[in-house]
């Protein structure tokens, strides 16, 4: 049976120099929010244009306005007060730890996080995975596994439902925590429960485990109620991925932390190895992690390469 090939870009996309200047000036009170809004609109339009040129299959808004992957969700109940900055894994990037110390997560700001109509459909929406959310947050005396289920039911599920209604056909759950820090065995059952609660008809649910070796958890990952599993091939051996998957597979094959742009040949060869050996139901190509660690000039080259590789691979697997 032929393998279907798809490509899309997930996660936070970098801001242009124009937005950098505008947001800096806003913080210093030197411009008004209108100027910043205009700059953001320009960035989003450019990101859409680059995705169209690359020929991706799902379109993102790049979460360009988001201050970090949690913020629109964690500030749904109002701005967080004195939220400490926490390093985002082993990068020079920081996030403000969400405060989930009160029972009952804040209601989802569903409408605010759905890509607007300037983003072509079908769209992809990236969200934090409930497991990572529960581990990165400040939870006070609450049980983190309980928080995980609560976040999924009260924040993520309504957001995904709103996204589906607005034409998102794929939801990409960012899950670096699992591959980087690991997971205790008792967390798998509530993780499964949390993911079950966010399943939405008509939406492909992708769980992307990056910044670490996802292969060591393959057996458990296959048992989760998601349509596809994403891996980071800088940290995970293709040879460890097994074979004949009954789930979709996303391969992070363009290094989101390196300014060296991968060659088309090596990227296609890598993906080809995956189609030949792992043989997933559907294969998705993307970057190893979000591209927000790169300047826009480099990110655009990577995105272009992603599209070229997917196009070549589609030709090869259809032969």
């Amino acid at each position: 049976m032929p393998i279907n090939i798809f490509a899309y870009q997930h996660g936070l996309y970098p801001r242009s120099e124009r937005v950098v200047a505008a947001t800096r000036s806003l913080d210093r009170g030197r411009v008004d929010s209108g100027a910043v809004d205009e700059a953001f609109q320009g960035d989003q339009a450019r990101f859409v244009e680059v995705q169209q040129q690359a020929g991706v299959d799902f379109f993102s808004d790049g979460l360009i306005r988001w201050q970090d992957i949690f913020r629109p969700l964690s500030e749904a109940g109002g701005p967080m007060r004195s939220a400490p900055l926490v390093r985002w894994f082993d990068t020079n990037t920081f996030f403000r730890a969400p405060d989930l110390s009160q029972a009952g997560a804040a209601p989802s700001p569903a409408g605010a996080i759905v890509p607007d109509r300037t983003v072509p459909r079908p769209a992809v929406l990236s969200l934090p995975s409930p497991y990572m959310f529960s581990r990165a947050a400040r939870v006070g005396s609450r049980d983190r596994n309980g928080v995980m289920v609560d976040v999924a039911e009260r924040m993520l599920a309504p957001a995904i439902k709103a996204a589906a209604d607005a034409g998102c056909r794929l939801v990409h759950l960012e899950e670096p925590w699992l591959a980087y820090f690991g997971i205790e065995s008792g967390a798998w059952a509530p993780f499964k429960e949390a993911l079950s609660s966010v399943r939405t008809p008509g939406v492909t649910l992708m769980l992307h485990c990056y910044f670490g070796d996802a292969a060591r958890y393959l057996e458990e990952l296959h048992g989760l109620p998601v349509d596809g599993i994403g891996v980071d091939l800088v940290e995970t051996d293709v040879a460890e991925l097994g074979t004949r998957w009954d789930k979709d597979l996303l391969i992070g094959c363009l290094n989101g932390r390196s300014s060296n742009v991968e060659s088309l040949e090596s990227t296609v060869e890598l993906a080809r190895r995956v189609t030949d050996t792992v043989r997933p139901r559907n294969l998705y190509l993307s970057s190893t992690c979000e591209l927000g660690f790169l300047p826009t000039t480099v990110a655009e080259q990577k995105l272009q390469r992603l599209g070229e590789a997917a196009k070549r691979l589609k030709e090869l697997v259809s032969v």
Partner: protein
Amino acid sequence: MTAVLTHKALLTHEVGSLDKPGWRVKAYAGQALTDADIEEARSWGERLQVPDYQKLLELLRKVPLDKGQKAELQRWSSLYALRLLESAGLDVVYDGEQQRTEMYDWAVSHSEGFERRGSVRAFDNKYYTKAAVTGPIKLRSPFHNAEFSYLRGFAEAELKIPVTGAYTIGDWSFDEHYFTRENLLEPVRDRRRKRKAARRQFILDIARNVIRPNVQELLKLGAWWVQIDEPGASTEADELDLFVDSFNATVEGLDGMFSTHLCFSDYNLFFPAIERMSGCRQYAVGFANYDSRELGTAEDKRPGYHVIKKFRDLSYRPILGLGVLDIHSDFIESPELVRDRVLYAVKVFNDPARIHVMPDCGLRTRSWKVAYEKLKNMSAGVALARKDLGLGS
């Protein structure tokens, strides 16, 4: 400066950068200044008693400025920042890095082997310009001599020079020279080994070929206390030894007082690696960001400071630069809160001479008004602590 001063109990100092005033940014960029910009320069000049500040106002009215006038503008900014820190009552100061573009960019733009790639975000609306190493690395020209020479002529307090460290420069750079083609079909273990070896070479090259010769030039000019800024030091938990090696390669055998600044990390990660860093006489570490705002010196009131015991127990008995101001918030710490953080640290160390007091990090992300209020309260809080400890003023 003398060793006597650095052993002053509860010595106060700044850490690094201050925000660049609007008049400095706009005039440098050739943008028109508003009346509010001019008033900002006037009012701070008056408040800080900057000598001849009216000459700055005259300069600002000449925008756009030529190259020489821009250099003059930077020196004014430097002098204002110096006076702000002195006026806040600090024992040891610098100029808030007013003459530098930014801590990373300034270093790599004075070094051979780097090319700028563009801005990337650190958090919220905070960014830095990131470069890639593209060839052999060496110091192009000493890049702190001019500012140090200038400040020495004006400073009333003692000077400490912040210098960005090799590990942080390496960590914040892209590598397009040492390890460029990663074959993802190779086993991960083999690739990781190659990547780490290349990174080690890269970072040690920065230490030996850029930072050390730059520090040597400062020492020749009479500098004594050099603070090696390493905000990136704990980014990779398995590279703490490399951070230590890069610090040692930078300062080993040099005659001066060398300290390092660490911030926003899990500081437990630094142990035991920094047991080998005996050339570091002071660790300037941010803690307030993790602490409670409640008053009190009991263990449960100071959750952000529990880790300081590990610094206390280092065999070479370094001084701890105690971060007491959260630089990510406009919250103005009261003198009493500063006092209690200091008293807790003194209780843990049982030796006030091993405690210096400072903000968590540079106050670049705060307005001058907020930074000034925070620093003044820091000085006032230290005065309260000194009184409580019977140390005299």
